[in-house]
């Protein structure tokens, strides 16, 4: 089960020049994107930039109008869509929701609920959950399947800031433990940045891509996000490393350091290098 973070495995999804058209308008076009086993890829971009469309195309919910999408076969997908509305007339407990698309062994179901921190809610009706709890339930459901590829469309919506950090930590832990690939959609990237291997910046097409540092530094990113770009860059200083339990620090590039102090001194150089 244990896979080191830096041994990136086989490609799970490869998109080549993929485009999706609706009513003669291209929603996204020219998308080249690869998600590998053990890798976290984050899609960012403004509203309507085609993030969800790209993710849905990657997992085959939409089929591309041009270009190619190849998926590993077999590919077990765990999907948390942007919006899920369960009609109140359907009696659905969290436990039953977990087995929505396939039966699960009891212990895996339990383990996923514990990992998502909602094991006490397994008998609750999904309609009675708060936004954050429901989001966790959806995440637990996707996790319990032990997917090869976890696709999360804005998984932290309706979750407060501390819950947000906890959710991202959980996603990283799962990746570290199971070695699955993660395709994450976000518009608040200041927390995501730290955990992500590749950031892809979308606006109908791919504006820029790379490590979080290089994307933040890029001209295209600044143009796309305007004044918010600097705000996000500021956050980056706080979150581009992770404090480990033993007091050491994991930097954004995955290396382990004794402290985070020196990184801040050099980060501006990194930006200009990129």
């Amino acid at each position, binding site marked *: 089960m244990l896979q080191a973070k830096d041994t990136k495995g086989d490609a799970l999804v490869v998109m080549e020049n993929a485009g999706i058209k609706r009513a003669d308008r291209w929603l996204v076009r020219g998308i080249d994107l690869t998600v590998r086993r053990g890798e976290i890829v984050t899609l960012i971009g403004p509203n309507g930039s085609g993030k969800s469309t790209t993710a*849905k195309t990657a*997992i*085959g*919910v939409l089929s591309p109008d041009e270009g190619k999408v190849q998926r590993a076969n077999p590919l*077990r*997908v*765990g*999907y948390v*869509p942007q919006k*899920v509305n*369960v*009609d109140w*007339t*359907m*009696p*659905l*407990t969290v436990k*039953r*929701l977990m087995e*929505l*698309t*396939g039966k699960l062994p009891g212990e895996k179901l339990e383990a996923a609920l514990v990992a998502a921190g909602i094991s006490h809610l397994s008998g609750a009706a999904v309609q009675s959950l708060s936004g954050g709890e429901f989001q966790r339930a959806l995440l637990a459901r996707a996790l319990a*399947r032990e997917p090869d590829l976890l*696709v999360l469309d804005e998984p932290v919506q309706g979750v407060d800031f501390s819950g947000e950090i906890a959710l991202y930590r959980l996603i990283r832990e799962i990746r570290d433990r199971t070695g699955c690939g993660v395709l994450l959609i976000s518009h608040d990237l200041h927390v995501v940045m730290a955990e992500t291997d590749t950031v892809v910046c979308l606006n109908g097409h791919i504006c820029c891509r790379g490590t979080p540092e290089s994307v933040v530094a890029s001209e295209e990113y600044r143009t796309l996000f305007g004044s918010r770009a600097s705000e996000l860059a500021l956050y980056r200083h706080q979150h581009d490393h992770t404090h480990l339990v033993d007091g050491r620090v994991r930097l954004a590039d995955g290396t382990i350091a004794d402290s985070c102090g020196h990184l801040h001194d050099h980060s501006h150089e990194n930006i200009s290098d990129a």
Partner: protein
Amino acid sequence: MLDDFFVRAMVAGIGIAIIAGPLGCFVVWRRMAYFGDTMAHSALLGVALSFLFDINLTLGVFAVATLASLALLFLQRRGALSTDALLGILSHSTLALGLVMVAFMSWIRIDLMGFLFGDILAVSKSDIGVIFAGGLAVLAVLAYIWRPLLAGTVNPEIAEAEGLRPEAAKLVFMILMAAVIAIAMKIVGILLITSLLIIPAATARRFAPTPEIMAVMASLAGALSVSGGLLASLQFDTPSGPSIVVAALVLFLLSLLRLKMQPAGG
């Protein structure tokens, strides 16, 4: 025993209620009540066409109801009008077409009221055979597509992404609806079939902890409504369809009462 018309109606009606329960749950969950109505209304066009071309009534109704649902799916995809408007157009135009065609066919005596509101006298032994054979087939197919249909009802994208085929399940579900309308038409009548789908499911919602239990309880609530309604219809000489629906309504209202009393009890 089946020689008695009332026993035949009772057996047929309970059979239909058992089939309608689980399907009705999906109609409620997917908010397809008006859709079901449209398919049921198109049944009268099916009746008229069956008489015109001298084909089996149940088959004719089944075919036309299926076509109506496929036409709706097609028009929805084209996206020219809202689903609501499309349903309104299809629902009433098929009903009107049926009525006009029946009026033209002066050479046949058609008991229009019987088709619209149900006629317990019309149930034959072979009808019972159709209901139980057809019903068993409908329930078997529904059990087979249960998981993709349920997952697609909660969220079609999750179902699709995780390897199920919710669109195919939805299509099969439409065909099952058409089948139930075709075999239930004689008992409840075209105008009231949807209520036998919806009201027992709504009643069951109050008591069911899972979708599966809700489906079974909807069947039970439906069977109770049919028995009560038919007994009342015999007693008061009222048409069978409306009597069954009134019985279902009474049961639903009682379930609301139980809901109100729950906090005090628990």
